[in-house]
């Protein structure tokens, strides 16, 4: 499977994602510089975490107009798999590929810690190696992960089962105490209606190897590969 990891000026999780894809799950992975056109023949595009354009104006707002994004929009419209992690999620909402917006954390602090996520459903290309109801432990590292959507949009998102991950307690209870940033309905990860674009604030690439202590994140990448292999 061919992965492309987009590199914006200020991306800083690009090498981590590439390492996991290339060296842990052994896939053909290349960087794509934001000024270059999106290469043809990619099977999945990853928008990595970081601080593209220094988070100037709004997180993801400037990156969304990088030349590569035209190709990403087209790729997504044709059903290509797009995974946005952290800043990548912010870019996807700014680009309108996902509904809502990510605002400054409710407590105004940069939150950097492992959190628990409840897997809401596994019928997606990104979660088929998990079970609905599973609780996984994945680190967050963001100052602007407070997901917001107005009530009508939120209702539509919930009705369409677009929420893929919610912040929860270790036992899987979704409540205010388990919500690190003030996100509405504890939303940590969200998929588009068509089911091919996922955005998530937590970092699965930071917990994909035994050697760094946590491995729950690898299942997101394995799911993508499973899905692609099942489709061939």
């Amino acid at each position, binding site marked *: 499977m061919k992965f492309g990891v987009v590199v914006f000026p200020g991306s800083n999780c690009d090498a981590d994602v590439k390492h996991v894809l290339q060296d842990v799950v052994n896939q053909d992975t290349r960087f794509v510089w934001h000024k270059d056109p999106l290469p043809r023949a990619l099977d999945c595009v990853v928008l990595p975490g970081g601080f593209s354009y220094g988070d100037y*104006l*709004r997180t993801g*707002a400037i990156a969304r107009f990088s030349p590569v994004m035209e190709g990403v929009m087209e790729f997504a419209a044709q059903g290509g798999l797009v995974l946005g992690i952290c800043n990548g999620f912010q870019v996807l*909402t700014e680009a309108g590929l996902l*509904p809502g*917006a990510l605002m*400054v*954390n409710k407590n105004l602090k940069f939150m950097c810690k492992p959190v628990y996520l409840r897997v809401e459903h596994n019928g997606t290309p990104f979660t088929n190696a998990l079970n609905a109801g599973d609780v996984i432990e994945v680190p967050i590292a963001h100052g602007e992960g407070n997901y*917001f959507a*107005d009530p009508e949009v939120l209702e539509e998102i919930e009705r369409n089962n677009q929420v893929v991950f919610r912040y929860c307690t270790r036992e899987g209870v979704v409540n205010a105490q388990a919500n690190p940033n003030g996100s509405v309905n504890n939303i940590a990860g969200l998929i588009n209606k068509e089911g091919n674009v996922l955005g998530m604030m937590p970092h699965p690439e930071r917990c994909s190897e035994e050697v760094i202590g946590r491995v729950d994140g690898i299942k997101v990448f394995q799911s993508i590969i499973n899905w692609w292999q099942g489709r061939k």
Partner: protein
Amino acid sequence: MYLARVFVALKKGVLDPQGETIKRSLASMDFPGVEEVRVGKVIELKLDAVSEDHVRTQIEQMCKKLLANPVIEEYSFEIMEV
């Protein structure tokens, strides 16, 4: 030459954590009666353009496309000749 001043603020109904924190701070400093604080930003642009109408159209487009995020923000602007 024209100067445009664009004001961007969170929409009513969108919680503003910075505003809330400033409000609490003001209350603790003994400024009574502050009922609401909203934080926004001001963006100043100098433009070389043929007419104020043209500037208005341009700024409107800029706000819609980049300067404000319509999901959470609202904007207004003023234009003056300089």
